[in-house]
């Protein structure tokens, strides 16, 4: 004997929150992510403000920090473009154009992979120059913040790969729920973009 249990409010809005449960859950998750990155940004400020003015422990500026601003600028544009492709995936699903939505999701995965490849080149250049998290507080902050962000990008790639691959079967029997899943994954991806928008000037430019 088998019985299926109906999960409440996975498509229709919950009467209290005004949105479906999945979306509300993702927003709560993102709120906790703000706290996580907030704590790291706070540590960054503390370390930077507390660094001595001169000497080996002085905070490196744009002339001495070995960071590749052109590459990071390209990465910023890549992430912004990937945010646009995600929002267009959701847009096309709303219009019931699954093929176009799928193409947008594939473009998102492609752009996310480009981001990771550029990050790989950035990191390998640092390691080649003998710059590790243990070298200086600046590199500890750089590797921690960009590394954690990179892990989030990797997580996004896995989620989108599932939604384009085996997860896409849901579109055939429950298109509304599939569209909601894309919206939730999109919210997460936009947050990843949002974090980079603040990371980029804070680490690379200031």
């Amino acid at each position, binding site marked *: 004997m088998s019985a299926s249990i109906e999960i409440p409010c996975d498509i229709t809005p919950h009467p*209290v*929150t*005004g*949105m479906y449960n999945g979306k*509300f859950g993702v*927003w*709560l998750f993102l*709120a906790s992510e*703000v*706290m996580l990155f*907030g*704590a790291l*940004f*706070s540590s960054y*400020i*503390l370390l930077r*403000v*507390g660094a001595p003015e001169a000497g080996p422990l002085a905070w490196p500026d*744009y002339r001495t920090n070995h960071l590749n*601003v052109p590459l990071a*600028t390209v990465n*910023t*544009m890549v992430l*912004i*473009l990937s*945010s*646009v492709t*995600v*929002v*267009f995936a959701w*847009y096309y699903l*709303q*219009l019931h154009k699954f093929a176009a939505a799928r193409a947008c999701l594939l473009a998102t995965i492609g752009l996310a992979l480009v981001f990771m490849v550029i990050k790989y080149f950035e990191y390998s250049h640092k390691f080649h120059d003998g710059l590790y998290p243990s070298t200086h507080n600046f590199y500890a902050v750089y590797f921690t913040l960009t590394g954690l962000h990179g892990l989030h990008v990797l997580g996004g790639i896995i989620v989108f790969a599932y939604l384009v691959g085996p997860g896409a079967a849901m579109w055939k029997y429950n298109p509304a729920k599939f569209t909601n899943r894309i*919206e939730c994954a*999109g*919210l997460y991806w*936009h*947050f990843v*973009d*949002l974090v980079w*928008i*603040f990371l*980029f*000037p*804070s680490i690379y*430019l*200031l």
Partner: protein
Amino acid sequence: MSFATPEDARKHRNIYLAVLVALAVLTGVTVLVAQMHFLSTPMAVAVALLVACIKGGLVASFFMHLISEKTTLYGILVICVVFFFVLLLLPLATEFTNVST
């Protein structure tokens, strides 16, 4: 959120494209201001963070559709923002401790 009419869908598509252009321009402005080094450090920090806040606002408002979300969510996010600033201001508290000891 869904589109009521084809006109509504077109409007959304145009907004997404306009936000893309705005984000690209603002990224250019951030890099240009930082690379030209014509501003003092505090001024450069203020400009970079202001531009980042505008870019973040655009992403949150239009890509994450926060502009048309329910008020329940705003309440949660306000609490989140308050505690985020508490976290950012914690280093300041340690500075006060240093002064008093």
